């Protein structure tokens, strides 16, 4: 082999293993209410369907989205933009009303009914589709310690990791989202 060919050969073997042109996506999931759970799961499942390897990193209030049994709730407190379609118009709730016991639960039931009626997937369904599509799910170890969760509380097949685990994956991804 000529020395020139050897140089080319060395350059090829020194190339990173992951093809740089392969697109991938990562999402940091920090919120676990019913409404905030949608964007990360919708984007993760869609990106996976479009052929991108996807990693989701669940931290702080996003971590409970990995619990075996989900019971997601929504609140209108502090959210003046949350207006539900009602009797031909749209209705929001003043903050004071959202503080009345049972109001959040009623809002959550209304939202879930609306979701079903409009043919929108449930979070449970989207999460199942994400698992099926080999989306890598990482639970934040620090959050598990902080809020006292065990790996047994979580669905099977997830990884547990920390900031470095996420950064390694994000540094190779074209799309990195924080939700």
């Amino acid at each position, binding site marked *: 082999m000529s020395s020139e060919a050897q140089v080319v050969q060395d350059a090829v073997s020194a190339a990173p293993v992951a093809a740089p042109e392969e697109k991938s996506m990562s999402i940091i999931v920090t919120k676990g209410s019913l409404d905030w759970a949608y964007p990360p799961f*919708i984007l993760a*499942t*869609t990106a996976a*369907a479009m052929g991108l390897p996807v990693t989701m990193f669940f931290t702080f209030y996003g971590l409970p989205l990995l619990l075996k049994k989900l019971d997601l709730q929504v609140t209108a407190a502090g959210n003046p933009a949350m207006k539900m379609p009602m009797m031909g118009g749209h209705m929001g709730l003043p903050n004071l009303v959202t503080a009345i016991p049972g109001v959040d639960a009623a809002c959550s039931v209304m939202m879930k009914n609306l979701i079903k009626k409009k*043919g*929108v*997937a449930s979070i449970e369904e989207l999460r199942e589709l994400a698992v099926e599509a080999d989306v890598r799910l990482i639970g934040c170890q620090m959050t598990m310690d902080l809020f006292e969760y065990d790996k047994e509380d979580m669905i099977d097949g997830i990884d547990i990791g920390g900031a470095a685990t996420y950064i390694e994956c994000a540094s190779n991804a074209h799309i990195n989202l924080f939700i």
Partner: protein
Amino acid sequence: MADHTLDAKGLNCPLPILKARKALNEVPVGGTLEILATDPGSVADFEAFCRQTGHELVEHSVDDNVYRFLLKKAA
């Protein structure tokens, strides 16, 4: 006549795309998948899906609020 038909009527974003991706597993390379949907957003979404994945959007049409897409599966 398509090799496979997916009825995604009544489903909202992103389900038509996710179900189409799954249905493509049942279609041979070069074969066709017909998708019926009522989500108006699916028009732009199937165009983007095909550009990204390389599957060919052979035709799409709308009839009585039902969108019909015909995809040809790439290798």
